[in-house]
């Protein structure tokens, strides 16, 4: 049951749409910043595989210009 958090930079002009999209994504909680186009994203997924899949999706999202992991809690037995 991995829990991770990320600092996400939205691509130019995509901040609002990206916030809505992430908030609607299963396993994601998005926290938009004030004044800057930065979003804090907390993910809560049922398995390591699901976490990997979600991260892959985020990395390939054109509305995201940069994503950096900040925190990861991957319970014992689920690590590489």
């Amino acid at each position: 049951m991995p829990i991770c958090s990320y600092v996400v930079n939205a691509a130019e002009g995509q901040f609002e749409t990206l916030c809505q999209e992430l908030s609607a994504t299963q396993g994601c909680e998005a926290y938009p910043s004030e004044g800057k186009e930065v979003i804090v994203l907390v993910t809560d997924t049922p398995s390591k595989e699901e976490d990997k899949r979600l991260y892959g999706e985020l990395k390939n999202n054109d509305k995201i210009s940069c994503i950096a992991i900040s925190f990861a809690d991957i319970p014992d037995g689920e690590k590489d």
Partner: protein
Amino acid sequence: MDRRKFMKDAALASACASAVAMVPGVSFGTVQEAGIAGSGLDWHKTPCRFCGVGCGLLVGVSDGKAVAVKGDPASSVSRGLGCVKGLHAVQVLYAADRFKQAYVKRDGKMVPVPISEALDLVASKMQETIDKHGKDSVALYGSGQWTIPDGYVASKFMKGCIGTNNLEANARLCMASAVTGFLTTFGADEPMGCYDDIEKTETFVMWGNNMAEMHPVLFSRCLEQRRRNPGRVKIIDLSTRATRTSRAADYTSNFRPQTDLAIANAICHEIIKNNQVDWDFVNQHVNFKEGKTNIGYGLEDHFKVTEETRAIDVEAYTAFLEDYTPEKVEKLSGVSAYDIRRLAAFYGDPNRKVISFWCMGMNQHTRGTWINNLVYNIHLLTGKISKPGDSPFSLTGQPSACGTVREVGTLTHKLPHGVVMNKEHREFAAKIWDVPVERIPAKPTYHTVEMFRAIDRGEIRFLWTQVTNPMQTMPKLGRYTPACEKDDRFIVVSDIYPTPTTAVADVILPAACWIEREGMYGNSERRTQQFDQLVEPPGEAMCDTWQIIEVARRMGFTKEFPYPRETYIKDIYEEYCLHQAGMKHGMAPYDELRKYPGLQWPYVNGKETKWRYNEKYDPAVKKGSGFEFYGKKDGKAVIYARPYEPAPEEPDTDYPFWLCTGRVIEHWHTGSMTRRIPVLNKSVPEAYVEINPEDARRMGIVDGHEVRLTSRRGTMLLKAKINGRGNPPSMSVFVPFFDENKLINHLTLDAFDPYSKQPDYKKCAIKVERA
């Protein structure tokens, strides 16, 4: 709160902290209004766990867990700021492989045991070793990350109870040259100025000091001072490679390793030649001396040298400096005569305030004491010292290298007040400790490098380390790791996570970390910072202070360690304060410390002393004297004639490159904590070697290629980093030491400064090959 909710809150707090650190001006008001943890947090003050700056943090606690960190706006040090390490600091408490119980080695394997059983074994093995091999066969090796109470009980236990001076700390590896520099020039340790100098100066000179990465919050104060005074405030970087500090500087000069000695002398040459000496100050407050030369490098076991100084006059000093004209020094150092003159002009301008900052570049140096002396020479000649904005300032690497190792005195020659060689100092300590004075030996034993050599030779058979990782940080590991692995050596390690040092342990004691216990740190500017226990340590993990008390009591020293569990930190601190009482080093009372993010000593009549030795600010200075360097009997500081002497190992045909080692902003020292913080570890997951782009092109190396580094002591494969955050000049490379899978200290040399005994991690000769 369930674990899941707790981890999500921690994840959110962590990412908010990262974003705040990464993007200036960003805020998460709605998150903060809702309360980061959702259920409301209790915020508590604490100094940061990491470097010697001593930033004030507020840690948010929810349901017994530390879940969030923010900068403490009440801290005069950091004013609400924090660096990327500090703002993630609570995560060091919660990684999965934390030691929660003790381990002892049985049949070659570490097996878990109750901590009381492990403490019994430590005490009995220590006693058995003493009985068999004598008091000087046991040693305790601590740290500048020890709290003040940790170091104090360690000193009392080893020197006042067992009766050996086999007590050292890793600050020998980072601050010892600063100490001997202060003692030889001023007769008293630690800076005369404080961080308030930053907002009062006009010039910052960084001597081999990558402050942008190593002391980032203080560096941000320097940048802000320049931003607020455009055109007037200048940052000057003197370094052996281009760093982030160089990029931020107004002027930068790369010098050949070791030639900082010559550059400092050239600056003094110019100041005298241009008649920019503050003669009133010099005539009243300064003596001139010369000392021994060709003093060696400590490469041999049992190396010893004693300083012999001789008074000289200003004419002799001026004649000495004739060897250091800017043109001569340009040839030696690679820094142009023009740049040297410009630097001298900044120091010499009577209408300009100047701070010199330095840290490991000057201290990890086989002539570390000398280069400290030489930078003081510049400030003494110009009278730019002990005044707001005019300050030579030695920065510290660890959170309590000053507070614990230097002030409590956890080094072989030291006592909490004074040195073991002085009969009166021994009597004073014995009286407070209530032990027979004969028990404190009058002779220092082993400094750190020699201590590990003594383990190799078999003179020391029992070693207990706390809060440090010498099997990663000692130079020339190829000798000292096998030494600790010898069959008849017994190694006890108190730590929070597995490290290369716990890998050689016979006993591992799980330690409480930072806010899992109460304590005090002392930062670079003489500021003592108390923090409460905010959360419980995991499992059987125990505070280092209490571990020592438990072992001491098991060895029969119950009378000496009477402190009740409920109040032992307060009791120990108050006992420690007895050693430092007086106008020159009085400590703030415990109850005052608890109220504020930190208070500076000398703390006199309810007031901090911000600038020492200046009558205007320091009540210990003789009235009417203006300035008094009261560490010296005659109240005068010393300007030393110290020559340039080469490094013990310089590049040659077989090993043509210089190797310099150091840190990166993301990792704290050996990485045992920061490598367990995902955002930091992902940023810099492994050590690398910075190579000059021209050298790389010539050798056919591109960024990311594997490169083999070889010294006379060891060899190692590392990935090349070209045009990264640092850029070394041609024929030199840089490697950070945080990576336990790339122990660069297998290549370094165990040469040290003969006076401070501090090793030089910045200079040795290697060859570089494409793998």
